[in-house]
């Protein structure tokens, strides 16, 4: 063991690589565009009460089904509600579900992945568990949950979060398997580090990059997932504004108010596109070798 002589610090604890990655990210125009759109959307969602021109639930039957205009940028629905305001409030549901679902999948998936990758004995059990979860397509899982718990925002978060757990487990497990063979981990073992210290101090910090990339793929998927579930009536229920709920109520009014279909959908596309661009940029920045292959 010649490696014992070398310093026993995990590379990720150095600030250098992270700062270089940040610089690479800042120089990527597409990723920066994505970041700006994401920030604007998150701010709009947070401050919807302040920035929305009308309260989300205010009906005005004298102004029902109006096409987009200076007064109502995105038009109004059959109850005369301002669609622009409702899109802003809808973003709140999208962002909430997106972040909460990813948080849930990470909270469960990361420990499972670490354990499966670190302890060979546990691996078969975790792998079978993951296979069982993967045997339920996301929507079928959501259907089951909605049947048991009823449709709600929480149901949507749980359905999407649980559906993402297997992917998080796989990524974490793969990283753990790779990292535990590294020389610096062997060195830490030789110097008497306990399993807990190995996992917390040496393996997890170095798996973070892969998890960040995974999260940027998962968040847009979760946002679309929320819209789909709410559209089908399995997620957020009216009158709570959600982009999916808006599209569902727009479907029967195709002929009279096509704008009701266009704008909530564009909002979803813009938001997911922005997250995807940011995610691509982050992947390039954090792992330049991987992306140029």
């Amino acid at each position, binding site marked *: 063991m010649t490696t014992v002589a070398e310093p026993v610090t995990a590379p990720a604890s150095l600030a250098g690589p992270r700062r270089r990655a940040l610089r690479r990210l800042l120089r990527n125009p597409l990723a920066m565009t994505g970041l700006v759109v994401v920030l604007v959307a998150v701010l709009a969602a947070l401050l919807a009460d302040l920035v929305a021109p009308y309260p989300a639930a205010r009906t005005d039957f004298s102004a029902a089904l109006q096409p987009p205009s200076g007064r109502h940028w995105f038009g109004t629905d059959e109850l005369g509600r301002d669609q622009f305001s409702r899109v802003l409030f809808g973003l709140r549901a999208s962002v909430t579900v997106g972040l909460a679902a990813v948080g849930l999948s990470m909270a469960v998936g990361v420990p499972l992945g670490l354990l499966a990758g670190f302890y060979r004995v546990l691996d078969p059990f975790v792998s079978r568990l993951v296979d069982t979860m993967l*045997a339920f397509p996301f929507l079928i899982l959501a259907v089951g949950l909605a049947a048991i718990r009823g449709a709600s925002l929480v149901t949507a978060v749980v359905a999407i979060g649980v559906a993402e757990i297997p992917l998080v487990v796989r990524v974490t497990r793969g990283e753990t398997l790779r990292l535990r063979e590294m020389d610096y981990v062997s060195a830490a073992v030789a110097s008497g580090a306990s399993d807990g210290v190995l996992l917390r101090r040496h393996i997890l910090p170095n798996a973070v990059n892969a998890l960040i990339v995974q999260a940027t793929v998962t968040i847009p998927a979760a946002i679309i997932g929320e819209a789909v579930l709410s559209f089908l009536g399995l997620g957020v229920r009216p009158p709570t504004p959600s982009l999916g709920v808006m599209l569902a109520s727009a479907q029967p009014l195709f002929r009279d108010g096509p704008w009701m279909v266009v704008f909530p959908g564009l909002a979803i596309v813009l938001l997911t596109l922005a997250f995807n661009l940011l995610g691509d940029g982050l992947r390039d920045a954090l792992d330049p070798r991987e992306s140029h292959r």
Partner: protein
Amino acid sequence: MRRYLLRRLLESVVTLILVTMVVFAGVRALPGDQVRALAGEEADPAALEQLRHEYGLDQPIPVQYARYVAKAFSGDLGTSARTGLPVADTIRHALPVTLQLSAFAVVIAVLIGLTTGVLAAVRRRTAAEWAANTVALLGLSVPNFWFGLMAVLIFAIAFPVLPASGFVSVFDNPVESFRHLLMPAVVLGSGLAAVIMRQCRSAMLEALGADYVRTARAKGLGGAQVVLGHALRNSLIVVTTIVGLQLGVLISGAVVTEQIFVLPGFGKLTIDAVFTRDYPLIQGVVLVTATAYIGLNLLVDLLYSVIDPRVRVGGAVAQ
């Protein structure tokens, strides 16, 4: 090879058993008493007990589970709480719609994905590559249910060239079936097409830089022959895997697509079952989907080992 097959088969069986346990436990987790729901609120305790006995609900849980599995695998999935028809029959009627839709969607996705993927790899740094990449990024970012709504808006309402809803079986009237399924299939296949395009492009780029392609060129083979005969052939392995990995996405997508285009398939059945709280039907639908999904994944893995000999050799060595 045989050991690899056996191991995959065994894994699938274990997963399937776990799935039946989850479905069985899921029904037990439902709010409310099933027997009371069947008998009505007015039923007296003796009648409830009688029903409980008839349905075997007074037996220990493991016995109930064993009975449930035995019945399910002999094709008895119970009767729909709403229509009173056998769940298995209800599913059997809906399935052809979904199968035709999904098959059509996969064909469209593979056709579009492969052509644009090859094009983007061969015509590097041209407008064609840029266009293909943009379309792929849009395909990944545009949720297919919104794409579906927009397609209806454009092709059925603004310019009425295609029907907005309804289903005609390909076996009854191929032309009308094509007209009815074209829009739903393109919508369902769009996301898959984008994924295939991206994977095909990178696999092609790698293949085109490989030694055997250079050898083929050095032998004097023409451009098309090298691209299609050598590079594309190897890229197909990747495409098979992707289609396999995306099956779950396809199943979920079918549910949404059927809802938008009002197709009386498996997906619409599923959503309707949730809204009418038809628990036996939900249970059946979930079990059938999960079983089909496990079976299809196994099939893709086997297909994969046929296409790529390295997989089965690797699998055997790993043992």
